[in-house]
């Protein structure tokens, strides 16, 4: 058979042969990549997707403490959830905590970062001390604040007692007017340093030459802050807000340690509600429906937030 009969010659490969070889190699490469990432994907599916799918399945069943009823129940749990005043109230409490604590932590964190951006004596030591609350477990922080607010032995009432010159019996975790401030103080105390740390890092990265130029041009502090500093730290600030917002949405430990959601259900957050229903009363299917609602809400919030700060691109 003459050589011309062969469409491709080994010594002089045609373009199509080369292309085919390249395609084959690329396919092998791709496959090899898949092989490499397969274990990770498998693990991700196992710990991420499977529980989610299982959660959805359980939410359509009727598993309770005494009944392992896995038959399909339609929207039974979702109907109950929608009609649960206590659940909506706990969601509202969560939103209230988030709406107050988040801006306060942001402003305080920013103010502290602004204070420590300048080289002051003992700066490193102060920063290390200020960050300490973040490394404490939230449940321990809550228990500590519970002691701080104790009406008999707590230092807060004792200090107030010294100031007013008599015994102060302020029931911080029972009085409906004081219980929210008490929780918020504990929450803000623990997590403001987190904001502070991130914003300090962001402020440190602001281009000094721009600040100097603004100063030479006679721009005031506010103008410099809003026109130069804020745009420069915004990406970091947005992430900090997002992280803390999500954290606050699943607020549990501090409230649990201080009030267990009381008085009544006045400070019950959605996480506490889900915990009580799921792990104390074993309303498993109902709790699955609540958990799904939380997941959906948080996913929507995260997507909107990321879109807003243009980080999703």
């Amino acid at each position, binding site marked *: 058979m003459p050589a011309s009969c062969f469409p491709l010659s080994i010594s002089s490969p045609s373009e199509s042969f080369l292309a085919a070889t390249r395609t084959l190699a690329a396919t092998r490469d791709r496959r090899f990549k898949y092989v490499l990432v397969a274990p990770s994907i498998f693990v991700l599916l196992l710990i991420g997707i499977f529980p989610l799918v299982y959660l959805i399945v359980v939410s359509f069943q009727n598993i*309770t*403490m*005494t009944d392992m009823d896995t038959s399909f129940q339609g929207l039974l749990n979702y109907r109950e959830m929608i009609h649960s005043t206590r659940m909506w109230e706990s969601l509202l409490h969560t939103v209230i905590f988030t709406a107050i604590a988040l801006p306060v932590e942001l402003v305080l964190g920013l103010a502290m970062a602004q204070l420590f951006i300048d080289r002051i004596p003992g700066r490193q030591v102060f920063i290390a001390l200020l960050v300490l609350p973040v490394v404490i477990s939230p449940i321990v922080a809550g228990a500590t604040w519970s002691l701080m607010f*104790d*009406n*008999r032995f707590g230092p807060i009432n004792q200090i107030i007692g010294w100031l007013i010159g008599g*015994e102060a*019996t302020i*029931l911080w*975790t*029972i*009085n*409906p007017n004081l219980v929210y401030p008490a929780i918020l103080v504990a929450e803000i105390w623990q997590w403001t340093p987190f904001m502070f740390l991130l914003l300090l890092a962001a402020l440190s990265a602001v281009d000094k030459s721009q600040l100097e130029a603004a100063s030479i041009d006679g721009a005031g502090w506010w103008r410099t802050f809003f026109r130069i500093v804020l745009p420069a730290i915004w990406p970091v600030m947005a992430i900090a807000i997002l992280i803390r917002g999500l954290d606050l949405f699943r607020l549990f430990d501090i409230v649990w340690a201080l009030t267990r959601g*009381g*008085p*009544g*259900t*006045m400070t019950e957050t959605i996480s506490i509600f889900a915990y*009580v229903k799921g*792990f*104390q*009363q*074993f309303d498993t299917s109902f709790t699955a429906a609540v958990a799904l609602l939380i997941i959906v809400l948080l996913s929507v919030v995260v997507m909107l937030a990321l879109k807003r700060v243009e980080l999703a691109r």
Partner: protein
Amino acid sequence: MKQAQFGLRAAAALFAAVTLAWSTGAAAQSAAQRAVDAAKPLCAGGKTITIVWEAGLQSLDPLNFSGPKWEQLTGCKVKVVEAPVSEMFTKIMQEFRAGTGAYDALNVIPAWMPDLAQAGALEVLDPYVEKYGYAKELQTIAATYRDNQMKVNGKIYGFPDDGDVFVFYYRKDLFARDDLKKAFKAKLGYDLAPPKTWKQFGEIGAFFTEALKSEGIYGASMFREAGYGNFMFQERFRNEGGKFFDANMKATINGPEGVKVLTEWRSENKFMPPGVEKFGFVENLAVFLEGKSAMTISWPPYGRFAAGYLSEEKALSWVPKSKIAGKVGYTLPPGGHPELAAGFALSVAAGSKQKEAAYLFIQWLNSEEISNQRVQLPYALRDPFRDSHFTNPGYLKLWPDAKDYLAALQAASKTGLLDLSLIQTDKYEEALRQGISRLWAGEDPKKILDDIAKQWDEITAKVGVEKQKAVYAAWAAKSGAYPK
């Protein structure tokens, strides 16, 4: 032939004698010893029994005393999983659902039994009781505990193992003071004595607070924190004549008796130490042992702690030093029907892989012989629950007033009231706990109780009215459900 007949008869007689001797010996053998003998072969090779126990002082019993002793006697090690009471139910249920078989034996609050039994988390103990001859010793458990805290639907699911009951403690020295007696009689027209009714309690408490202001002593202090208040409410509500449900299983907690209790609670707080709304076990204990309160109600250990004879015990170093040793009297709370608040029963986990060994351990723990030692452990909080505990010569000599103390506990056990126990008990109790915390937040008692009743009806409807009605009927038929 005659020789053969004689030999046969002799052999039969010998067999009968041996059988009789063996059976007599077996009958004479204690339940504790039977458990040890039966456990020895099961424990060969060094098995480990895992038992769930309340964290803190309670668990020092298996950690320091019963666990090591059981290992020494049988070779079986005992692993103690400690958990706070508030988490014990969750842990037990979670483990059962997970099916790991991690727990062999359990401490169970009797009010949880219907839930745990219905879920299948507890092993039925009747076959074991029969097999290991424990029925007779079960009968010597004080009737209140034996008849009310052992069975669900006629089957044994746990051995009552802790005679928890509320006792009324009062300062004998104050009630005996002539100046106070005279002033009281002049003011209220009757003799100063430990109160028999809640009306008297309110009057005496207010009188003491006023009269002893200069000495810094309050008329009374009480558990008011919602978790403890739950027990206090259940007791007082029924002493006032209240019933939890009507014949149609509709909640009646919001009746006049309930409103009266909550209204009086709030009023009584005025003569109690400031911040009493947050008083739990430790806060109340501290105030009472400091001598700052003339009357209180609590579990039995208060009496032992107040006597001060345990002050050298290392494990009790956290207990404030008693300033009232020898000054405390013991009696029944006003109304005469104290709450059999909480308590513990010993059960076998249905998921255990060594149920036999677990059962033998709890039989030994619960037996007449061993429980008599356990209730006297200085650091443990197991309270007398067998008839013999109340008359134990060693216990009677523990401190000068121990005789009166044990007599009060025995009297309390006879008239005590059971905690409400239904399907999903915790949901009912949760609504009550939340209601009590709302009371301290200043809400109206009637409104609170109406809300609780509404929540109870919703819970009942979800469980199933007929199903719950049957469980309630079984509970209400027990001797300790309502005052007779």
